[in-house]
């Protein structure tokens, strides 16, 4: 067993990561022992490290611990390295085993919908649209809305024929080998495109870090490449109070500028009243493979998030991330919408 390569010896044991961890806040330390214990201390006891398996899979990889760490430690990366270290095909959580099986069978992280009648899209273009598994196979309105919005802004785009899952869910469960194979398959199919646009912050981040590409999340593409002045909206039928959820992988791993862009776009939508909920950047539980591995933990976090949106007086909680939308919609408190789908309904 190799020792994880992320350097964590600079930990000053201040406890900031534990204080900031949303899973500890929701589940308590008895259930989830937290970033310091799992990413810093566990790797020092390599013979026993596999004993952390159940515990470490509760981390939603929200990157909050890294944000608050005074010693600048790359804690989420260290956490993912521990997951990769202890990964075993034979000892996966049930939900994670299903992800691996879906990848083997369908090249998607989720089982594809049986009958799909989605809008046809060409396979070539200046811009490559990479939909991601959830948009294509679960919340297809994201896929169709993204295609529609890219058409409305007159982008020359296509979806690569035979694209497969980017591998982000496999990284989260520690399955490095399947991840490597998917990367090779995808890269061969990405040739011929210029710009890359994605619907999912997880895909964006993964293509950037693991494929060494320069993808843009749809919000970045609309703000930077299209421009606010080219987004023309229909007159409103009524005013709606909207809260914006800040997905962890969008705000913390891609960058907080995307959230600024999202607010700027929303402010230009007529008939929309933005309301600010408490802790809009707190994890909703949708990431890190937790929805599949520990659906109860993911649900606890989603309930907390929805409660705060409701308290802020929102009628609609918008999330620019398919995984967040999927998880938040498990809570029946108020309507949850996906960002680009919401825009598409209002764009001329």
């Amino acid at each position: 067993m190799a020792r994880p390569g992320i350097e964590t010896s600079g930990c000053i044991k201040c406890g900031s990561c534990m204080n900031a961890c949303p899973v500890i806040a929701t589940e308590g330390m008895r259930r989830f022992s937290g970033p310091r214990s799992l990413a810093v201390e566990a790797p020092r006891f390599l013979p026993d490290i596999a004993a952390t398996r159940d515990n470490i899979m509760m981390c939603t990889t929200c990157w909050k611990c890294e944000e608050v760490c005074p010693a600048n430690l790359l804690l989420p990366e260290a956490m993912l390295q521990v997951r990769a270290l202890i990964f075993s095909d034979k000892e996966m959580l049930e939900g994670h085993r299903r992800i691996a099986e879906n990848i083997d069978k369908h090249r998607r992280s989720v089982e594809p919908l049986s009958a799909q009648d989605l809008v046809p899209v060409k396979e070539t273009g200046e811009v490559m649209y990479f939909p991601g598994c959830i948009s294509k196979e679960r919340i297809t309105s994201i896929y169709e809305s993204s295609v529609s919005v890219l058409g409305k802004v007159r982008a020359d785009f296509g979806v690569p024929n035979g694209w497969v899952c980017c591998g982000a869910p496999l990284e989260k469960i520690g399955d490095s080998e399947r991840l490597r194979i998917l990367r090779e398959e995808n890269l061969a199919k990405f040739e011929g495109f210029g710009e890359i646009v994605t619907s999912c912050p997880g895909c964006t981040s993964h293509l950037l870090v693991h494929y060494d590409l320069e993808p843009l999340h749809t919000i970045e593409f609309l703000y930077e490449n299209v421009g606010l002045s080219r987004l023309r909206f229909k007159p409103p039928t009524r005013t709606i109070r909207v809260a914006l959820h800040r997905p962890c992988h969008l705000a913390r791993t891609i960058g907080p500028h995307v959230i600024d862009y999202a607010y700027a776009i929303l402010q230009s939508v007529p008939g929309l009243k933005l309301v600010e909920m408490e802790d809009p950047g707190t994890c909703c539980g949708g990431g890190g493979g937790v929805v599949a591995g520990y659906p109860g933990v993911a649900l606890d976090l989603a309930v907390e998030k929805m409660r705060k949106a409701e308290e802020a007086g929102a009628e609609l909680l918008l999330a620019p991330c398919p995984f967040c939308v999927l998880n938040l919609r498990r809570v029946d408190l108020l309507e949850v919408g996906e960002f680009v789908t919401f825009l598409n309904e209002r764009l001329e």
Partner: protein
Amino acid sequence: MGRATTATALSTSCFTLFRPPGIVPGPSRTEFGMLSRKVIPFNSFDDLSAEGLKGTLSDILSFILPRLKSQGLPMSGDFDHSYSVLSNIGTPYCCSVSPGFVESGRLDRNPGGRVALLGILGMRDFDPDLAVSMLESAIGRRNVRAYWSQIPEVKERYDMSPWEVAALSERLPLEERISDVVKELDEDSVGVPPLFALPQYARKMEFLGRETGKTVFEVATPMSLPGQRLQDAFENVAAHEGCKLLKGLTAVEIGFSRNHASFVTIRSRSREQRITFSRLIFATGDLVGGGLVVDDDRAKETVSSLQIETRGSTGVYPPPDPSLGSQALREVMHSGVKADSLLRLSTKQGETLDNVFGAGSLLSGFAFPTGVGLGGVMLTSWMAARNAMEAD
């Protein structure tokens, strides 16, 4: 705001503005000299004496304290002398300004009166048995008694930090349950650990006092809720006063022409972004709140364009014990970003930037582990904000 947790968040919420004789040199002839000697224990305080400080400590307090109060954090105390409050491990903590409910547990008040310390099973950071034992051995106080109470949601979770309990208190009426327990105690003065998050803090602590008819005070708990609460208040004040808070980001470069800066480049995990500004205040930093990171065995500011300096060897504080920590840590503890008397920061080329300021622990001599306290944080924040407002 810097990328990491700040020194403020790691600290207790008590300001030490007065320092006992012997730690710092005696007062100079000017009021500002006295002030700076009291609150800025580093060796360039003479630079700050006239030009940098254009007010009195009263001005600072009258500017900052009402603003903190408006965010739900009432502070009390007197900058002319210090007093001791009770820390979570039973040792006296010396400060001159603190949250009102910490200050109400001052050890010099009612020394003969009976005091109860109430712990909560499953909540870490406060063990009343330990505190009572320490109070007996440290200051010979024997009229303090330890109690434990049970709150099922806390006991069940096990090892909850005050921060987590504060989050829980937003959902549960903890104040009502604690109030029921406190009413049962014989003592008139009851110390409790930090329980409530900032927005409800004052209201719920007042509720405890009103419902029980007793003096309910809070023990000062380092590295947990009080410092977080104070930092939250500072951030809310800054946002309320019209600042754009850039929080949790790594600033990597400042773009400047001659002595005027126009943008800062910030880096997330995978992207860089330029943010333009008219005036910029760096309010915190990275390692141990010192504004610096360790690069091999040297201290380094994450903003590559800024100049840093080391003040440990000739400063007011004695040189660090060579056996204490690593060379890198000692270096970091005594290094910081170089600032002039107006707290304007300097580029690596030695140019003083007229619209970039520093405040708090990223300035050299203000690193948290050297025991500087929050007085200097408060003073330099006020100075930086005022000078930024006055900058053209």
